[in-house]
């Protein structure tokens, strides 16, 4: 005899909230793949100038650019939710929740702007 098991297949398609959750969770595949892209670049860099430049040229095809565009958007969505729940994930501090969220978003904006500035 087997106990009843609630069917789980496709549960995340039944409700927009679950769909958003799964969309956000999809970013973990992209962030992992992106780390491997960087690792490949590091490997090519260690091999020398010509291999590194071939790695750079490889990034310029439509498929890698589409991958990075999707990755940037999903990781951005994940970052937004990461800071939104930060008042709950941080140890309790005597600061209003909205201030914690704002500080996280501001730190991200400042660091991102500084990084872009350094590359320009």
């Amino acid at each position, binding site marked *: 005899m087997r106990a009843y098991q609630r069917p789980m297949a496709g549960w995340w398609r039944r409700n927009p909230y679950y769909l958003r959750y799964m969309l956000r969770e999809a970013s973990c595949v992209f*962030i992992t793949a992106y780390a491997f892209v960087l690792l490949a670049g590091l490997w090519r860099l260690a091999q*020398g100038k010509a291999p590194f430049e071939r790695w750079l040229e490889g*990034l310029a095809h439509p498929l890698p650019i589409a991958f990075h565009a999707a990755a*940037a958007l999903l990781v951005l969505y994940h970052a937004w939710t*990461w800071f939104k729940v930060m008042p709950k994930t941080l140890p309790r501090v005597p600061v209003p929740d909205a201030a914690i969220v704002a500080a996280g978003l501001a730190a*991200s904006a400042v660091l991102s702007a500084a*990084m872009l500035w350094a590359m320009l």
Partner: protein
Amino acid sequence: MGDALKRSNKPIFWSLFGAGGMLSALIGPMLIFVTGIALPLGLVHLSYEQAAAFSAHVPGKLAILAVISLFLFHGLHRMYHSVHDFGIHVGAGLKALFHGVAFAGTLAAGALLLML
């Protein structure tokens, strides 16, 4: 020491997940945009000499290692939990595989950085 007294490895992997999550939330979208979109489209430039110089000094090495390693531990930790969300039972073997891949990627990045 009995099993009940054995310390859990959960805090270690959870800390690596959290550190990677924070790093990716702070700089992830812009870093992906810069290296994956702006660089190949020619909006920003990164020569071999600049990349080699960045990875030749210790702060540069640590920055590269932190990004690759923490992104891997963060992403693979969540992938391991997502497999559960799809209704697949995850045992110790699969957990070791996901964290092992992150660990192997960290070792590879560390070894390459020592060569640079």
